[in-house]
């Protein structure tokens, strides 16, 4: 009796309307699969530490979600993979150097995961109701709380077992501190710099370094129609435009957009974080504006702000506007009667 009644209950939720549990978990696991190349590249360059940090985030995300849902007497939905994906994204957004016991920083990914899964996602109502991207809030919380630990970047060594690695600055860090000529000098010449940025052989968060691996994952998602081109293209396009026009100090139209596109978290952010279904608009026009806002804010922070990197804050700020944008660009209901105002026109 009870079961049949449950099946016929109508549940009205916020968009996007997912038809069944099966579809949700399918999306989650496919996105996780799309992240695999970038993750493997991170493990290749930063070794075991990268693997440990990501695994720590994934395991704690699943555990926190399970126990929170138990605590509030809800059905545990660990199998749908959204906790797994949040943990994976968060882990890929952290520096591998956090796996360190003196000074002890292993608690950082665990607390960041707690903030992401419990505070950002579950306290706001769980999957589909969170205002902000959980993984990014987790990272923002960690960056603000432990600014030292979160900005120690390992030199990519490409030797799997290296546990005590040298540290270095990220390309964007060098760009901010010393300028373009110094950045090119560090990597030899411009071609070599592009090469390092594309392959991922540079300092940075675990999953953000390899532009090629991220593009492969992104194109896979586009091909599978899990994301549309609107947000990534307007995000990257706006950022590239601003980098080209204002990127060079003292001269207009002399900046190098490619360096900005392939450094920092730009690719990971544009392809995987800004396209999150829950925290981005679902109307196409709104998505274009959302992406453009992300790109513009990112470049504003990179060129004028105090942080060398701005993708995270840019996406979080635009997350606030997602519902508003959706409302402003809502498509007309098919067959709806014209209002008096429209007829007068």
């Amino acid at each position: 009796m009870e079961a049949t009644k449950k099946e016929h209950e109508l549940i009205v939720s916020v968009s996007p309307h997912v038809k069944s549990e099966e579809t949700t978990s399918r999306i989650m696991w496919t996105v996780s699969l799309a992240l695999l190349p970038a993750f493997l590249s991170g493990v290749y360059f930063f070794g075991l530490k990268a693997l440990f940090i990501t695994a720590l985030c994934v395991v704690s995300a699943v555990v926190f979600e399970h126990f929170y849902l138990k605590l509030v007497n809800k059905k545990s939905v660990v199998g749908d993979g959204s906790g797994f994906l949040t943990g994976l994204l968060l882990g890929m957004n952290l520096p591998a150097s956090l796996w360190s016991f003196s000074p002890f920083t292993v608690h950082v990914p665990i607390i960041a995961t707690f903030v992401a899964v419990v505070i950002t996602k579950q306290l706001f109502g769980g999957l589909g109701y969170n205002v902000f991207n959980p993984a990014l809030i987790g990272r923002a919380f960690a960056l603000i709380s432990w600014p030292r630990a979160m900005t120690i970047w390992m030199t990519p060594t490409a030797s799997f077992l290296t546990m005590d690695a040298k540290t270095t600055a990220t390309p964007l860090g060098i760009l901010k501190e010393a300028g373009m000529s110094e950045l090119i000098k560090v990597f030899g010449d411009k071609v070599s710099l592009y090469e390092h940025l594309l392959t991922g052989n540079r300092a940075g968060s675990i999953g953000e370094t390899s532009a090629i691996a991220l593009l492969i994952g992104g194109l896979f998602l586009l091909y599978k129609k899990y994301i549309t081109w609107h947000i990534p293209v307007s995000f990257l396009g706006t950022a590239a435009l601003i980098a080209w026009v204002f990127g060079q100090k003292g001269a207009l139209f002399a900046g190098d957009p490619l360096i900005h596109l392939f450094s920092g978290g730009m690719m990971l952010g544009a392809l995987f974080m800004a396209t999150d279904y829950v925290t981005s608009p679902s109307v196409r026009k709104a998505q274009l504006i959302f992406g453009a806002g992300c790109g513009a804010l990112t470049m504003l922070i990179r060129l004028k702000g105090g942080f060398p990197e701005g993708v995270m804050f840019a996406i979080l700020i635009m997350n606030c506007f997602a519902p508003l944008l959706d409302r402003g660009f809502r498509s007309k209901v098919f067959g709806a009667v014209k209002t008096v105002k429209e007829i007068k026109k």
Partner: protein
Amino acid sequence: MSSHSTVSLKDQILNGIIKENTIFKLALSLCPSIAVTNNLKNGVFMGGAVLFVQVMVNMTISLMRNVIHPKVRLPIFMLVISGWVTVTQMLMAAFAPDVYAKVGLYIALIVAFASILARAEMFASKNRLMPSMADGLGMGIGFLFALTTISFFRELVGKGSLWGYPIIDTKPVLLLILPAGGFFAVGILMAGFNWINARAAAKAAAKAKAALAAH
């Protein structure tokens, strides 16, 4: 004008601390509770200042309630409040200048606290001296309690110290002493406060039910 309060003075005080706690229950005056509570000392002094102003304002208004013309009551309330805030400001500047240097701006802002004007309008202007004083005391203590809890939590977790003295040696969660952390702290503590209250209410309800059944 004087509708006598029937509740006891003790209940009147407890009302402000628990049932109508300015911050945790009414969510009023959140600006100062986030701005000044990044260390315990500031929180306690701010809470103390509000307690003092609330009690004195309630008593003054209560004594004056029969001579204030209803049409001009709000300006009069504001005058009384700003008078007592000025007294507080001067006292603090004289006896705790280091704290005053940090929270002075927010002390002046007490004038605009919704909670103080609301108690003057809703309670003190309709009640006699003692209930009004008890109400001010309860409201003020509730505010002091909230600010102390928030600043205790924030300084301990954010800085690892209390009242300026270092307590824990490990790396603290720096975010909590930053403005954004204030929202986290208030949100978490508000949830905790309501959770405890809800549990207590459920327990009381169960007890009453059991007593009824036994009867």
